[in-house]
């Protein structure tokens, strides 16, 4: 990994990163009923960099370590290895540093029903945030600021919402309150841990537009975690794809979505529904869909490339050694043996499902 960093060094200096996770790993030790311990490698050697005014989408299926990575960035978990860097300074673990850190980085939870205390009114939540982070404000100043914040997240008229309890609000309104509470801190970075996945489809777009507005108007850096590649495409500037705790591909959104350079990214993109896709293609497209396999165990991950048991393009070396990182230009990179072996062209020519079917037939023919 260190070589990779060195490769990147000249490039990394030019843009101003506000928050970085450098090669962070998180291992959880799980104690079994008989006293034995197993280690869950939730995240391994992941690197995330956030620039002001930029949205990075972190995409991956459930259990790929997205949330763990977000929680490390929110300092809920201390990384097992690697470091979190805020404005070029490594953050330390003590409590005062943590409070200072949280005045710059705020996390928006996935579940707006769980992240507001049902016993506190909207006003209380915002008021506490202001009391803690804007101590110079008077009670009156806080009151006006609360109204501003609620207007910022389009909860208008603000006076109607300040005295409401969470159960009197809809899911979308609650998530807006959660965002307003995070904004009260005046952070530089927002981490959204699947902020729209618990919301009705009808209000997701408003939410995405709100996040987009925060990026363009307030210059916030945003980490947008999702498993929904369509919303990532709508919202973000860059995409990073995670699989089984590791980053497998990253780059500008159009490059990644238009020409995925890792079989897993391809699988993800093809499995998201696309209304423009013809009905006729469907059977062909999903012919192999039921044998796409499942994410591997993080306790005992596959050797070599973690995707190789599911990969239709797998080669012998995939099972042995982890693939190197290949730079594809324009900040786009992927970790796949196909690039090292000069077979990258195969990716563009087929779909994941078709490749799976072809591989099965080939294997059957061989046996």
């Amino acid at each position, binding site marked *: 990994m260190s070589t990779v960093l060195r490769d990147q060094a000249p490039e990394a200096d030019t843009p101003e990163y506000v928050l970085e996770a450098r090669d962070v790993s998180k291992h959880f030790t799980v104690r079994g009923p008989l006293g034995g311990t197993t280690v869950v490698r939730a995240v391994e050697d992941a690197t995330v960099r956030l620039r002001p005014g930029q949205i990075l989408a972190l995409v991956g299926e459930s259990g790929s370590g997205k949330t763990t990575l977000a929680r490390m960035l*929110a*300092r*809920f978990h201390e990384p097992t290895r690697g470091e979190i860097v805020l404005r070029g300074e490594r953050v330390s673990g003590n409590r005062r540093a943590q*409070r200072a850190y*949280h*005045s710059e980085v*705020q*996390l928006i*939870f996935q*579940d707006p029903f*769980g*992240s*507001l*205390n*049902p*016993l*506190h009114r909207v006003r209380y939540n915002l008021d*506490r*945030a202001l009391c*803690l*982070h804007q101590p110079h404000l008077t009670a009156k100043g806080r009151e006006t600021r609360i109204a501003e914040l609620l207007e910022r997240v389009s909860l208008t008229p603000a006076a109607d919402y300040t005295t409401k309890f969470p159960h009197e609000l809809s899911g979308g309104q609650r998530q807006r309150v*959660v965002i307003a*509470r995070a904004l009260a*801190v005046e952070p530089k970075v927002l981490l959204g841990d699947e902020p729209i996945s618990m919301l009705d489809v009808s209000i997701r777009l408003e939410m995405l537009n709100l996040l987009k507005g925060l990026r363009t108007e307030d210059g916030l850096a945003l980490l947008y975690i999702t498993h929904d590649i369509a919303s990532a495409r709508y919202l973000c500037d860059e995409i990073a794809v995670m699989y089984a705790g590791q980053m497998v591909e990253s780059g500008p959104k159009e490059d990644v979505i238009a020409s995925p350079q890792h079989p897993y990214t391809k699988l993800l993109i093809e499995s998201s529904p696309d209304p423009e896709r013809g009905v006729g293609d469907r059977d062909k497209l999903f012919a192999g869909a039921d044998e796409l396999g499942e994410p591997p165990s993080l306790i005992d991950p596959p050797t070599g490339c973690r995707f190789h048991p599911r990969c239709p393009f797998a080669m012998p070396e995939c099972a042995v050694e982890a693939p190197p990182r290949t730079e594809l230009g324009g900040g786009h990179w992927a970790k796949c043996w196909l690039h090292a072996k000069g077979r990258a062209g195969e990716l563009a020519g087929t779909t994941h499902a078709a490749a799976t079917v072809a591989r099965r037939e080939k294997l059957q023919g061989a046996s």
Partner: protein
Amino acid sequence: MSTAFLTSWKVRVGLGILAFFCLLAVFGPWLVDSLLGLDPRENDTAVIAQPPGADHLLGTNQFGQDVLAQVVAGARGSMYVGLLGAVVGTAMAILIGVPAGYYGGKVDAGLNFLTNLFLVLPVLPLILIVAGYLEGTGITTIALIIGFFGWSGGARTLRAQALSIANRDFVRAMRMLGERGRRLVFAEVLPHLTGLIASMFLHAMIGAVMAEAGLAFLGISDSSAISWGTMIQSAQQQSAVLRGLWWWFVPPGLCIALIGTACALVNFGVDEIANPKLRVARPVSARRAKRLARTGGGA
């Protein structure tokens, strides 16, 4: 929440009885003194062991003391012990159970050890020994002892609840906001436990009233103080049961039972709030549903 709580008849009756006894405890002795001119301690040798009558509404005891005046004075003593014991017990349960559940780790290990220790202590014999050791003490000491030895079960329950709430997202969110530990415990976690605490408090109150009566009955109490327990104890000593002086021991016993019933009734109401499955349909809604079903069936 508060209005929903009051619609249950159980809660209303229970609160009514409790309010009655509280008022009795506060104003009763003064009323008895000024209106009836009775002193619970006064020995009137002219009327010994009289059954209830016009002069003495609840009769007199072996010592010529008025039973009504004693019951009213006893209400003050017993309610005082009940409330103080419950306050001390519940406060200790909160102060030990909630931080144990919230902070976890070493704090939890220490506090939980303490709780377990008190949980397995044989409380009643211990109270007997301590109360015997602190001889000649007033009713306040008895209340404090009862509270001090009666918090462990509640602390255990609160710890379990706090443990689950401390890991919810809203507590995490407020911690991330920079909220400090003590405020997180008392403003975020504790309000979720109010139902549980209210029910624990009522339970502790019955327990303390009963424990005081039990201790007094066993002779461990301030003999000069008047409580329902001391009344029953002196009735027992003078073989009131054998001699058929029922008006001497029935009123205080009935009062204890009434307080217990009242607390239990309020507790049912609290339970219904905490667990909506226990809720029964209110008569109004039940009638409306029936009417709708009838008209719906006819149409």
